[in-house]
């Protein structure tokens, strides 16, 4: 089984874990990410696990250790896309991984890490006002003003 690519995107590293994972591959990912943080002077790591149908205590530990090492090297790690069944199982297993930062999507993680992302997703929040801007922004037909 081949290695998992660690992709630099600006000052963030992006890792997407796909499919069945051998222990050795998971362990080498840990090395690869730590080395890449150093090499690219990264300040954030996003690990997407939306393709994983299982995380056991070994893989949970690998994720927690990647986050721990990254922190020591000055980079924040965010794990994204964990499936419901995987989350329930991890918690039942006793692994709540409180040190691990998480986000629903890669995009959310990028926002958390302060990385610029395209704002094509302004579908959200049809009525209420963005906190940082006093004016209501409505992409649609918001023309009820005078």
């Amino acid at each position: 089984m081949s290695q998992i690519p660690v992709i630099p995107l600006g000052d963030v590293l992006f890792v997407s874990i796909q499919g069945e994972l051998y222990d050795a591959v998971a362990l080498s990912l840990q090395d690869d990410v730590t080395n890449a943080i150093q090499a690219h002077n990264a300040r954030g790591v996003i690990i997407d696990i939306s393709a994983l149908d299982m995380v056991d205590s070994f893989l949970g530990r690998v994720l927690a250790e990647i986050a721990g090492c990254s922190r020591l090297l000055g980079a924040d790690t965010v794990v994204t896309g964990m499936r419901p069944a995987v989350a329930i199982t991890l918690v039942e297993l006793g692994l709540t991984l409180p040190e691990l930062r998480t986000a629903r999507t890669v995009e959310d993680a990028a926002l958390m890490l302060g990385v610029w992302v395209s704002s094509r997703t302004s579908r959200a929040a049809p009525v209420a006002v963005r906190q940082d801007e006093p004016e209501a922004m409505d992409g649609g037909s918001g023309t009820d003003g005078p």
Partner: protein
Amino acid sequence: MSEPDATTQRSAAQSVADVLLRRREQVAQRWAELPLFRTVFTVTRDEAVEAGQSVVDALAVVASSGRPGDLEASGFDPVRVQIGRMSASRSRAGVSVGQVAAEVAALKDAVVDLLKAELEQEPAEIRHEAVLFASELLATLRLVTLETMLDDGQEIIVRQRQQLLEGATPVIKLWEGIVAVPLIGTLDSARSQVVMESLLEAIVAQQAKVVILDITGVSTVDTLVAQHLMKTVASARLMGAECIVSGIRPAIAQTIVQLGIDLGSVITRSSLADALAMALHRIGLRVHSAPDSPPVAGPAAL
């Protein structure tokens, strides 16, 4: 009273099996008069007799195996479904389990009467032994019937329980990125499990960033319920969503403290409105009244 020897027992088993086969018609005819058969097979009397015959056949097979008390005897297999149908029909008619058991017990008389008549020429010891054997055989039939009824009941309980679980967990979208689950009634393990699963599924489906678990309608919070809440919160967090528990009534707050339950890092709010305000804040929104509309009192003016 002396223990009957093995030979006597074997011959008792054989004579009961013989008599049942030989007098199958008569036994079935008499059974067809009894409520158990008469009220279930209502179309024709022949139908009842036929059903009775298949039960007699089953008893004969079990008798010849020599183990009249064997509940699992394969001899009963051909009639298990029929017995199930009969007992189900009786319970639908409002007859209690105990009454059905009594109706099955009533089948014994016909068998014993015929047995005594058939074995008139035999020595008293054999006759006595055969009657005992037949009694045990019919007692087993009664147990088989009860077992069937209990199995059916169990199945209904499981099915209804599942329906109850599935029907009772609405997940409400309050805002883009915010969902709420109002919990009502008693939270047992199975329901908590379903609540947890539908909530986490909703996080994915609704792209929720914040989840509000409202426990206003929960009657009591014990250690187990608290544990489930913590697990739900922890799972949601692993998926990248934040959980807020709202609607903790004063009495429940006291119970939680008295039980020494540590809700740890769980964010709690007393009302759903407070929780929503916080959730909106978390996704970077705030609520303010429009300058050209009259002010409305209270947080309900969302």
